[in-house]
Structures are given as structure tokens and as C-alpha cells.
């Protein structure tokens, strides 16, 4: 069973953290992953940096620009992660844009992920229909879970389709925004969380975008299975590097 599915089966509100590979320093990747597992985080999204990250706000963009300047590449990330399963068991997801994966070769990329022990992928600019038509077989062949985003604007009909194609969890974007935009949730978000809960989807839901502290984590996970923190954690890394991750996690839950 895929580590993501195993983790989702546990009776708890999952905390997933995102960081950009190659940031703040080129070779922080493994240390950050190990520290996150050690401090009780449930799942990790490793950001594969891209020059033109359309769905991201300034914090993650900036971290991507710096990571690329530091010298991060797809090949180097795979090299850094080649022995990662000797030291951690936490579910690992690579989050990145589709072009670098296309250039690596989609099948070669998926095969490499399986070899390393990556459990899933989040590719914001690979639409569900394209995936379903052209790539689903490849992803499944290599045991990878592909995670799709939904937003408050996504129709119920489309959510049902996304649910039918998904086999891990659904990534609920909290509001119509790029990453790192909001610091509080209002009634709009609450209604959205409740609306999705009422759909009784087969896949669990995890909320992302706009979660930065205990309050937003608690609110986001009331009706869902967990939450993802990205920009707030990047800011922590900017100030502290891979150290002090325990303090960051304690402030969330």
C-alpha cells in the first residue's frame, strides 16, 4: 500500500509541509526532510523549482528563483534523494510544474520517482483531462498517486470527476488565489469546507493555500483530513534554514 494511503488511513488531522528543493541552500533537501519526519510532520511536498511558477505567490516564486540560481535541477534532486528511503519513512510527494517533467521524459520521471520511493505527485498545470487521457496509465504503472487541486469555484460535477480519477487525496485550494495570499479564513471558506464535506467524496481532502498558524490549521482541518503549509514554512526556512523545524511544527499543532 502506498505510504500516502497508509497515512490517510490513520485517525488524525494530517500536517503536510511544502518546501522548495535547493532552498535556502542547494544541499538542504535531505536534512529538511529528515527534520520534518523527526518532528512529527505527516507528509512532505518537495517542490521541484520552476522558472515560471504560475500558481505561486511571491514567497514560493522567490524561493524557486533562488533554488534555480543555487543550481537545483531535476537530475540533482533525484541524486540528492537516491538514498532517502534509508533514513525516512514519511510519505513524500514531488510538487512541480509540468514542463520540467516533460523535458526529463514523463515516463522516465515516474520510473525514477518509484525507484527513489516517491509516493505521489502534484502538478498544478497538468489538467485532469490531459492526465486522464495521456498519463494516468504511466503514473499508475509506477505506483504514483497524482493529486489534483479543486477551488471554491470548481463545480460539483467537476469535483466528482476529479474524485473519480484520484486515488490518494484531493488538494482543496482554500480560496481563489495564488499561494501565500491569505492569513485568515472567513465564512466563505467555512461554507466551502462544509460544501465539500457534504459531497461525501471517496478521496479524503487536504486543504492548502493560506494556512500559516494554529488557528488556520484548526479551521482548515475541522471538516477535512488535513492541511498543507507552504509559504509560511518557506519564510521559516528563509530565517532559520533547516534548523528549528520543531518550533515551527509546535506552533501549528
Amino acid at each position, binding site marked *: 500500500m502506498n505510504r500516502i494511503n497508509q497515512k490517510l488511513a490513520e485517525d488524525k488531522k494530517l500536517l503536510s509541509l511544502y518546501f522548495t528543493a535547493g532552498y535556502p541552500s542547494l544541499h538542504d533537501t535531505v536534512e529538511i526532510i529528515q527534520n520534518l519526519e523527526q518532528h512529527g510532520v505527516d507528509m512532505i511536498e518537495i517542490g521541484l523549482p*520552476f*522558472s*515560471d*511558477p*504560475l*500558481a505561486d*505567490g*511571491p514567497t514560493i*516564486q*522567490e524561493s524557486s*528563483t533562488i533554488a*534555480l540560481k543555487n543550481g537545483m*535541477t*531535476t*537530475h540533482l534532486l533525484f541524486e540528492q534523494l537516491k538514498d532517502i528511503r534509508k533514513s525516512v519513512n514519511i510519505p513524500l510527494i514531488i510538487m512541480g*510544474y*509540468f*514542463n*520540467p*517533467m*516533460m*523535458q*526529463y521524459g514523463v515516463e522516465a520521471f515516474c520510473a525514477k520517482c518509484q525507484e527513489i520511493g516517491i509516493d505521489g505527485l502534484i502538478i*498544478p*498545470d*497538468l*489538467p*485532469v483531462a*490531459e492526465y486522464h487521457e495521456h498519463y494516468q496509465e504511466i503514473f499508475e504503472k509506477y505506483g504514483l498517486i497524482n493529486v*489534483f*487541486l*479543486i*477551488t471554491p*469555484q*470548481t*463545480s460539483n460535477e*467537476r469535483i466528482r470527476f476529479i474524485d473519480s480519477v484520484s486515488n490518494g487525496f484531493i488538494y482543496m*485550494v482554500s480560496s*481563489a*488565489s*495564488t499561494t501565500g*495570499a491569505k492569513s485568515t479564513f472567513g465564512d466563505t471558506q467555512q461554507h466551502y469546507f462544509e460544501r465539500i464535506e457534504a459531497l461525501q467524496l471517496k478521496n479524503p481532502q487536504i486543504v492548502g493555500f493560506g494556512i500559516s498558524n494554529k488557528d488556520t490549521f484548526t479551521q482548515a482541518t475541522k471538516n477535512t483530513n488535513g492541511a498543507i503549509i507552504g509559504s509560511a514554512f518557506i519564510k521559516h526556512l528563509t530565517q532559520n534554514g533547516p534548523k528549528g523545524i520543531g518550533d515551527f511544527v509546535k506552533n501549528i499543532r
Partner: protein
Amino acid sequence: MNYQANEKGYYGDFGGAYIPEMLYPNVEELRSKYLDIMNEPSFKEEFDQLLRDYVGRPSPLYYAKRLSKKHNTKVYLKREDLNHTGAHKVNNTIGQILVAKRLGKNRIIAETGAGQHGVATATVCALMGIKCIVYMGEIDIKRQAPNVARMKMLGAEVRAAKSGSKTLKDATNEAIRDWINNPVDTHYIIGSAIGPHPYPDMVTRFQSIISEEIKWQLKEKEGRENPDYVVACIGGGSNAAGTYYHFLEEPKVGIIAVEAAGKGVHSGESAATSQLGKEGIIHGCKTLLMQTTDGQITEPYSISAGLDYPGVGPLHAHLYKTNRGEFYSVTDEDAMAAGLELSQLEGIIPAIESSHALAIFNDKKFAPDDIVVISLSGRGDKDLDTYIDYFKL
């Protein structure tokens, strides 16, 4: 061979809509409605009326006698430079603002490189009384001060794109991010035949007025609708798409595309996307783009700010791959010389983008009785500073 986008927005292998889910409702709303809107009689009437009375269409098809003599062939210039705002860009912004109105949008965003599309967008927003925000790379804002001033005078807000390389591709990213954050009230007017479906097709259709006019104008002048060649410069490729559109299915009409080679195709400072690009995804579209082997999008270079886009519209990628189009690339030096030549032979100072198309005679020999139509996509006023620097005028 079919050169129309299919219903998913593909021209052969290129096109589609590779967009984050956050953009899906906006793009889907547009996709499901644009053709119906464009086919409404009231839309056509308003579009035609504005193109005629406001833009000044039809633009002349001018027989360039001295240029023809010099190059020993028959050259016609399609005078998009005489449009209101000085380039072909306004054909598209007029069309899209009318679409936006019918979609009930009350806020317009746009990206701009040199500022021509920004000015054309600010112009139609002023015309319709709609709020306008133009994203422009921080570096371009400094390079193109007169166009920034024009946009401000027209009532638009110009926002600096400070991410990445701070030029056109980053301005496009910022505009897309704005659209993600404002999904309900905003329409994004993309300025070239790029972006996620339906943009390449919609922009091409609005620009297709160029080739529609060439057909009847040439019939009047030469007794035949089809020239032997149509020539246009390509950055993203909107003027080229419009110039080719009604000739794509006419195999006897040669399609010639001229890209910017910058300081030379292999100099490391070039924008010759078809030569240097590989298949990939940029701004929501599968096409040819300049990138590193790792899939990071690279920054192109051309002396012409309107041609330095790292991708090319999906229609053009298809024309390239299927060999329907002949692709050439022209250096800064040759383009500047061609601009000077046109100025002195015909009394027309072209935009540097258009000068690239005019430099085709260096690479391609035409027969004396060939009819060659070149799209003169814009006028040179905006480039005067560059011409002054280059020729020490």
C-alpha cells in the same frame, strides 16, 4: 492538412490548455462562449463598425514600387502601421473588449512587453469606460517610458512585474496570477496568439481581418485573391496568424515566417524560437519554447521588444513542424538595415518588429512576377530612440 484549432485547442501536436485548476472556471467560461459571442450579429456589427470608424480599417494594401524595383519582385505592404495606436494589436483588443463586455466583466488585465499591446488595451478600456491594469516587466518599464506614459494618460494602471527576469514572460505570469486572484469580475486580454485555449484561436480570428482584406484588395489590384507569398514577423505570432489565416488552406500561397535572430541564432542572444526551441509548455500552451535541458524557460533577446518572447504561438509551431511555413531568422543588424531601406525607398519608418519581415530579401529570392505581401505590422515611432542610438542619427 487542417490549420484550425480543434475543439480542445490543438493545432496538430500543439496548443491545449495546461492551466492550474484555479484558472479553469475563467478559461472554461471563455472557451464555452467565445465562438457564440463572435457569431452574434450584434457583435459583428459593433466589431466591424469600430474597426472601420475607430481603427481606420481597411488598412491599405500598398504597392511598394521602389522597394519592388530594388528587389526585382512585386511587393505589397499591408499597412497595419496606419491603424489607430500604430500597430495590428488593436484589432485584437477591440474584439476582446467586446467579448469581455458580453461576459459581464468590469475589470481588464493585460500583459505587455514593449508596451504596444498595453497601449492598445488601455485604449479600448478608455473607449468602453472599463478599469484597466497592465502588467509590464520592471526592466521594460524603464526601457519603454513613452508607452508607459501613454497607458497612464489613457487611464490605465501600470503594475511592474518584479519576479523572474522582469520582462514580458514575467509580466504574463503576473497577469495570470492576477486572474487567479480575481476569477469573477476580470477578463484577461492576452495580446498574442499564445496562452491556453481558446486564446490562440480567438486572437487569430480577430487578427484574421488582415488576410481577409488582403484577399479582396489584391483582387482589385491584381485580379487575383492569392499572392504567391505572405510574409510576417513572429514573436508570439498574432500579426503573422492574422496575415496567414485566409491563405493557410491555399497550398499555392507560400507562408513565410521571420523570427528575430538577435545577435545571431547561436550567439546565446536570440529569439529564434523555431530554431532554438523544443516542445514544452509555456503560459498554459504546449508549443515550441526556448528552455534549458532541465525545462526552465530561458530569456530571449532581440533588439525588437515585440519579438523577444521565449515561445511561439501553437499555430506557428504547427506550421513549422508540418513544413507549411518557411521559417527564417533575421539578425538585429539585418533588420535595422531593412528598416532604414524602407524609410528611404518608400518614406515609411517601420516598427523594428516589421523590419524583420522586410529583411526577408536577404534570405529568399523571389521571381520578378511573384506577388509578395509583407505585413507591416507597426509603425516606427515607438522605436525612434533605438533607431537614433543604432544609426547615431
